[in-house]
C-alpha cells in the first residue's frame, strides 16, 4: 500500500474514532457454550422485544450465524445503532463422539458435527466484515483458550474495538478477575446473560465503545 493511501486510511480510522459513527456491525464471538446466544437474545429482547435463537446445554447449538439489523441501544446519554451478528462457537476440533455423550444417536451426532464445522467456517469468515466484537468468555473457565487468543489477535491486528463480556457470574466458581488479568488491554464487563446481572453496565460500555 502506498504511503499516502496508508496515511489516509489511518486518518480515516482516527476520524471515526473521534467523531463516533452511529451504525456498527458487531459480532458476538466466543467458544461453544460461553453464552453467546443467551446474550444476543437478552440484547435483542431488551431493545426490540424479539429473540435471536435457541439455546441449549449441548455445544454448537448455534450452527449458522444470525444477524439482526438496526438494534438501537441508549445508555447514559449515548445512543448507538448496531447490526448484531450472533456467531457459532469457535473451536479447533469437532468430535461427533462428544455429541453422542449428550445422548445423540451416531447419525445425528455426525450430522451435527458436520453442521458445526460449517458454522465455524462461517464465523471465521464473518470476522472480516465486522466493525467490532463482543467476546463472550465463560468466567468459570480458563481464559487462555486458543479461540480467545485468536479472536483478540485478529481484532488487535485490525485496530478494531473489542469488548469482553465475562459471562456466568451467577455461578459461584466464576472469576472475572482471572480474565481481566489475562487480557488487561481490553475493557471487560462481568455479566450474567442468563439472569441479567450487570447488563446495564454492559449496555453503557457498548454505547460508549461501539458508538
Amino acid at each position, binding site marked *: 500500500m502506498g504511503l499516502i493511501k496508508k496515511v489516509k486510511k489511518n486518518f480515516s480510522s482516527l476520524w471515526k474514532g473521534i467523531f463516533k459513527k452511529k451504525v456498527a456491525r458487531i459480532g458476538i464471538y466466543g467458544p461453544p457454550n460461553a453464552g453467546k446466544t443467551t446474550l444476543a437474545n437478552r440484547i435483542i429482547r431488551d431493545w426490540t422485544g424479539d429473540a435471536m435463537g435457541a439455546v441449549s446445554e449441548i455445544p454448537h447449538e448455534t450452527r449458522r450465524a444470525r444477524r439482526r439489523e438496526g438494534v438501537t441501544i441508549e445508555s447514559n446519554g449515548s445512543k448507538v445503532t448496531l447490526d448484531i451478528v450472533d456467531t457459532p462457537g469457535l473451536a*479447533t476440533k469437532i468430535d461427533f463422539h462428544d455429541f453422542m455423550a449428550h445422548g445423540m444417536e451416531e447419525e445425528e451426532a455426525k450430522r451435527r458435527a458436520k453442521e458445526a464445522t460449517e458454522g465455524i467456517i462461517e464465523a471465521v469468515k464473518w470476522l472480516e466484515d465486522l466493525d467490532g466484537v463482543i467476546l463472550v468468555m465463560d468466567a468459570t473457565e480458563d481464559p487462555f483458550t486458543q479461540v480467545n*487468543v485468536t479472536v483478540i489477535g485478529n481484532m488487535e491486528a485490525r485496530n478494531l474495538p473489542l469488548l469482553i463480556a465475562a459471562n456466568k457470574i451467577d455461578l459461584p466458581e466464576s472469576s472475572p478477575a482471572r480474565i481481566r488479568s489475562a487480557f488487561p488491554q481490553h475493557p471487560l464487563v462481568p455479566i450474567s446473560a442468563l439472569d441479567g446481572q450487570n447488563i446495564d453496565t454492559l449496555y453503557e460500555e457498548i454505547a460508549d465503545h461501539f458508538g
Partner: protein
Amino acid sequence: MKRSQTISGDIMIGVQMDLISEDKLSRMTAMEKIRLILDGVKEGKILVLERGLTPSEEAKLIEMTMTEITPDDFAGIEIESYPSKQNQKLLDKLFKKPLIRTRLTVIGPANQLKTLKKDRDLISALVSSQY
C-alpha cells in the same frame, strides 16, 4: 504411534515432534504454513513453531481445519500459542499498521495433544501416543 529410525540408526517407537524455525516459517506463505501444519498433524506429528502464526493465519488455519475434519478419521487440531504482543507506541498506533509479534506455538492432533495449563508465559501439555 510411529516407528522411526533416528539419525544414530536406532529404531524407536513414539510420537514424532517437528520443531520448525522462525527462518523457515518466514520464507513460507500463509497457505504453505497451513498446509505444512495440517499435513503434519494428520500424520500424527506434534509441531512446535518457533514463531507462531499471525492472527489472520490462525483464523485461516481454523477454517481449513474445519474443512478437513472427517468422522472416525480426523477430529481437528489442538493449538496453543501465547497471546501475541502488540506495538504499544502511540505514534505507531496512529500511523502504522499494528505490529503484532507472534510467539511460540504448539500444534498437534486433537486426540493426542491435550493442554493441561496455559497462561501468558507457560504452556503445559500432555502428549498421548494413543490414537
